[in-house]
Structures are given as structure tokens and as C-alpha cells.
């Protein structure tokens, strides 16, 4: 093989990489659009009347997630399956956001923490690296931390909407989450930083519970909550 043949082949390989990145960028943009639509849908729960329509909103969000799955399917085809980490940065941000949205839907439906497996299924990807396009563990955790923030806000707005039991349940959930995170020996700087924010969410919710307690509204809540279920 002549030197110039060798270099022509090399040139081909270099160009290919650029093309792949361009393709990935396009799909990621579409994913961001879908994520924004789901967000808009779910924001409604914070407002007074929204509390009554949570199930319907969740159902609608579930429909949007089928679009996500189609887009993810497309994303997977854009690059060789075993080069996930070569291009990771491109979809990292939107994936964390989608994890949050899925976790929010699951929480609203069942008041439980979505597992990594379940969220992967909702997004149409794998929980396990060996099995294909997967959900990186740090991205999962990052999405879960965003959920905690959102729930702190939801606790405040529940009170405004007259629902005094929800903050107590959120408080228990967030406390459990906090215990979970304490088990982790976080090294990663950005994740550690975001985790520090969790303490403020815990504190905020605790203050709401405190406000309810000193007014005896927590008891009312327990009764009310009992009746609601």
C-alpha cells in the first residue's frame, strides 16, 4: 500500500467521526423538545386546580415517553454500540432531565422512587451497560436529585392548595432518599455539589412540616390523608 493510499484511508476515518457527532446532535435536539413538552405538562401540578388532575397528567406524560423511546431508538443507531462513552457528553444533559421527568411521573403515580431499571425501561434504554445503550449511574442519580428539589416545591404548594397530608408523605420520602445518598461515598465533584443541595430540600420540607405541626394541621392531615387513600 502506498503512503498516499494509506493516508486516503485515514482521511475517511477522520471524516466519519465528524458525521456521527452531527447526527447525534440532531436527535438530541429532538429529545430536548420532547422533554420540554413533558415538563410543561407536569408543571401544572403545582397550581391549585392541578392537584385534582394528577393522574390524567401522568397518563399524558406517559404518552410523551413513547415519543422519547422512539427518539432513543433513533439515537442508538447513530453510532457504534460500543462507543457510548466516546459521545457521552452529547446526550448527558438531556438524559438527566428525562430521568427526572420519569422519576417525577412515577412519584406522582405511586409515591415511590423509580428504580434505575424502571426508568431505563420508560426511556427505552438499558439499565445495564452490557446490554446496549444504557443509563449511566451518575446520570440516574443526578436526575433523582432534581426530583428532590421539585418535591420540596410541591410540598409548599400542597399546603397552599389545602392538602396538608402530602407534605408529610413527601417528607418521609425525601428523608429516605437522603439516607440513601448518605450511603454513597461520592467523589465526583458535580454530583457531590448537587447532593449538597438535597440538604436544603430536606430542610425546606422540614420547615413546612414544622409549620403544619405548630398549628396542629399535621394531625388533621393524617386524618385527611387516611380518608383520601
Amino acid at each position: 500500500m502506498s503512503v498516499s493510499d494509506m493516508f486516503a484511508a485515514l482521511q475517511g476515518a477522520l471524516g466519519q467521526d465528524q458525521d456521527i457527532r452531527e447526527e447525534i446532535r440532531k436527535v438530541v435536539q429532538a429529545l430536548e423538545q420532547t422533554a420540554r413538552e413533558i415538563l410543561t405538562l407536569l408543571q401544572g401540578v403545582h397550581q391549585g386546580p392541578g392537584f385534582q388532575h394528577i393522574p390524567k397528567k401522568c397518563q399524558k406524560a406517559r404518552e410523551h415517553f413513547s415519543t422519547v423511546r422512539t427518539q432513543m431508538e433513533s439515537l442508538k443507531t447513530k453510532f457504534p454500540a460500543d462507543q457510548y462513552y466516546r459521545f457521552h457528553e452529547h446526550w448527558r444533559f438531556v438524559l438527566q432531565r428525562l430521568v427526572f421527568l420519569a422519576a417525577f411521573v412515577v412519584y406522582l403515580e405511586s409515591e415511590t422512587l423509580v428504580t434505575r431499571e424502571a426508568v431505563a425501561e420508560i426511556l427505552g434504554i438499558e439499565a445495564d451497560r452490557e446490554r446496549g445503550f444504557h443509563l449511566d449511574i451518575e446520570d440516574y442519580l443526578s436526575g433523582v436529585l432534581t426530583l428532590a428539589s421539585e418535591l420540596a416545591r410541591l410540598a409548599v404548594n400542597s399546603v397552599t392548595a389545602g392538602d396538608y397530608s402530602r407534605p408529610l408523605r413527601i417528607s418521609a420520602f425525601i428523608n429516605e432518599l437522603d439516607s440513601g445518598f448518605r450511603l454513597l461515598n461520592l467523589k465526583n465533584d458535580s454530583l457531590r455539589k448537587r447532593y449538597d443541595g438535597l440538604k436544603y430540600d430536606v430542610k425546606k420540607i422540614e420547615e413546612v412540616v414544622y409549620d403544619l405541626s405548630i398549628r396542629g394541621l399535621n394531625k388533621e392531615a393524617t386524618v385527611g390523608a387516611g380518608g383520601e387513600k
Partner: protein
Amino acid sequence: GQRREEKENANPSSALMTSFKSFQLELDTRHDKYERLVKLSRDITIESKRTIFLLHRFTSAPNGEEILKESEVKLDAVRQKIKQVAQELIGEDMYQFHRAISPGLQEYVEAVSFQYFIKTRSLISVEEINKQLIFTAEDREETTNTTSNSRDKQPHTWSLKVTPVDYLLGVADLTGELMRLCISSVGNGDIDTPFELSQFLRQIYDGFTFIGNTGPYEVSKKLYTLKQSLAKVENACYTLKVRGSEIPKHMLADVFSTKTELIDQDEGLP
């Protein structure tokens, strides 16, 4: 053949080459020691960090004593590592390797002073820390038996001194942990700790202010974060005070016992 070939480059037995071979030995010895110390320092850092993580569980768990004990075990393990450091430094100018071990020692100061605060609600002194870093031969026998007998016969002690600057930097980072402790105390309905912490942090802040820029740059660099931490703690106390103002003080205990029950109930559920 081989001999001749080596000659091509430079005479391997020339005075210059001979001295460079001795330099090689000296440099390698030094670098190896440095490397070992860096690794020990990393281990010390990691284990100290884990101890801090563990101690943060103290507030939330009812099993406080257990956690304190566990942290003591962990810190003992860290001190065994520090002993290894001290042994490496026998006959050396410790400052030569200071950069290798300083990060680990700072993190140890942070961990040990955190534990000390939780136990005594006061600041451990640098002397107190250094007292725990004097190791005797018996300690050594437990762990390493492979050393020569001649040494074992006389009672040895090794020690390591945390420098004032390492101590200060560790204490500066401690304040970050104390701030976290304060925020999660509020999150756990503990209303006394935040006030104690704000007083304690203010003392440390005043201390750092007093030292100001007479210390090295690293110390004054921490001042900003320290001030932020203090502000967060002061704000937390403020919030407690303001919210607490709405009911008579004697009722507060009720409020929190109720709260604890509620959580206990929850934990009892499947």
C-alpha cells in the same frame, strides 16, 4: 559484544556515568518514598472522608453511640496509616515530603475534629491531635512483624506532627461539614444544634479573622467559604427563631415529639 556496543553511546564506566548511576539510585529512592507517601495520604484522605460521611449519619439515626464507636474504629485505622507515614519519615526532613502527606493530614484533622465536636461540642486543639499521633513499638508489632529483631528489643516511638497550617486548613474544611450538619439538623427537627453551631462557627470565624492574611495564601483563601458557611448557619438559626416565634416555647417539645412519632410510624410500615 554487548560491552562494545554500550561504549558507542558513552563510556559506562566514565566518572560521569558512574555518578549519574548513583543519582539514579538516589532519585529513585526518593521518588519511591514520595510515591508511597502519596498513596498513604490518599488512603488517609479516603478513609477520613468516609468517617465524615459516617458521622453525618449520627444525627438521623437513633443508634448514635454505635456510630461514634464505628467512627472511632475507622479513625484508629487511619492512625495506623499515619503511623506508617511516621515510620517512612524516620531520619528524614519531614518537610521534604510534606506536600505528599499534607492533603491526607488535613482531611484527618477534619475528620477527627468533626468527631470531637460531636462528642464534646468543642474544638480539638492541635496538641491534642498530635498527642494521638505518637506511636510506640508495641503498636507496630501488632501489624508488622517482619522487621529485624535488633530493633524490636528497644522500645521505639514514632511520631508525626500536624503543622499549624495543616491544622488550620483542616479546621477550615471542618466548618463546611458543620454547616452541613446544621442544615440537616434542621431537617431532622433538632432545634438546639443549629444555635450551638452558629456560636461555635462564629468563634472559628473570629479566629480566622484574627489570623487574617498572616498565614499562608491557602488559609486566607478559605475565608470566603468559611464566611458563606457561617451565613448559612446564621440564616438557619434565624429561620428557626422566626418560625418558633409563633408558638410558646413550651409547646415546641410537643411539636417535635409528635414529629418523631410520625417518622417512627412510617418506618414501622412495610
